[in-house]
């Protein structure tokens, strides 16, 4: 059962270093041969690279875990990244903080109610400037997705 009182809940800020080797690995895994990622000594992060926040957070402490979604019925509906300038470069130390932004319901095309949970992660530089924001939409379907 989804707990709507979790809207507004935030996790503790997490330090996330942007690393050259991880950028290269990520660029190759996403089938890019762009020299801007694999040859530059201080490359910028690819558009979806901040998903590697996974390496730095503990899932059980994420505010999303407290929403109470049924993992067997969970789909990743969408993902958005906004950059307030060029994407962060290798060598940058960012701090990430995630909040539950919105929970709402829609009727599914094949019947049953789908629950949408949007979380927003803010990435800030050491001066506190907002560098990037990530919005993730999780969908709990009425039945297991088959």
């Amino acid at each position, binding site marked *: 059962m989804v707990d709507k009182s979790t809207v507004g809940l935030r996790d503790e800020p997490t330090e996330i270093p942007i690393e050259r080797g*991880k950028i290269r*690995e*990520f*660029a*190759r*895994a*996403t*089938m*890019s041969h*762009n*020299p*801007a*990622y694999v040859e530059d000594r201080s*490359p*910028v992060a*690819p*558009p*979806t690279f901040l*998903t*590697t*926040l*996974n*390496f730095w957070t503990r899932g059980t402490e994420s505010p999303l875990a407290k929403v109470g979604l049924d993992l*067997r019925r969970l*789909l*990743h*509906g*969408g*993902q*958005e*990244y*906004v*950059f*307030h300038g*060029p*994407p962060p470069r290798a060598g940058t130390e960012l701090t990430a903080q995630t909040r539950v932004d919105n929970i709402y319901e829609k009727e599914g095309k094949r019947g049953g109610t789908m629950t949408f949970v949007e979380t927003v992660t803010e990435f800030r530089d050491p001066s506190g400037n907002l560098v990037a924001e990530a919005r993730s939409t999780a969908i709990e379907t009425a039945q*297991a*997705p*088959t």
Partner: protein
Amino acid sequence: MSTSWDDLTEGAGPAPREYGPLTRTDFVRYQGASGDFNPIHHDEEFAKSSGFPTVFSVGMLQAGILGAYCTDWLGAENVRRFAVQFREQVWPGDHLECTATVVRKYEDGRERKVDLGLLVTRKESGGTAIKGEATFVVP
């Protein structure tokens, strides 16, 4: 490496690019790079016990492929927004095609920008894997 302002036209875009066939190794490689180790993308028994015929790709893998397609065209430093909606799942053996279209070309203060409409299509079925949008500055 970069495309100039005069080369960009509303309704037009770069040549489509094809990827694949996607393999289980591609999924695993992406999971290792991203830190998302959901077993549904690499553990056959887990995927079947969850009601799927086999493992399927990580949505963020095809999102990442689409992002790289865009930054190859308009420059790694120039992306300002990148958004995807996941539609159909992508399965081992699928070929994917990325396409991008300029939907709006405009000046925003002192910056020149383009908004893009993006698609990742499953070649064999013709189904849409991802519908996306992006905004780039054009120096």
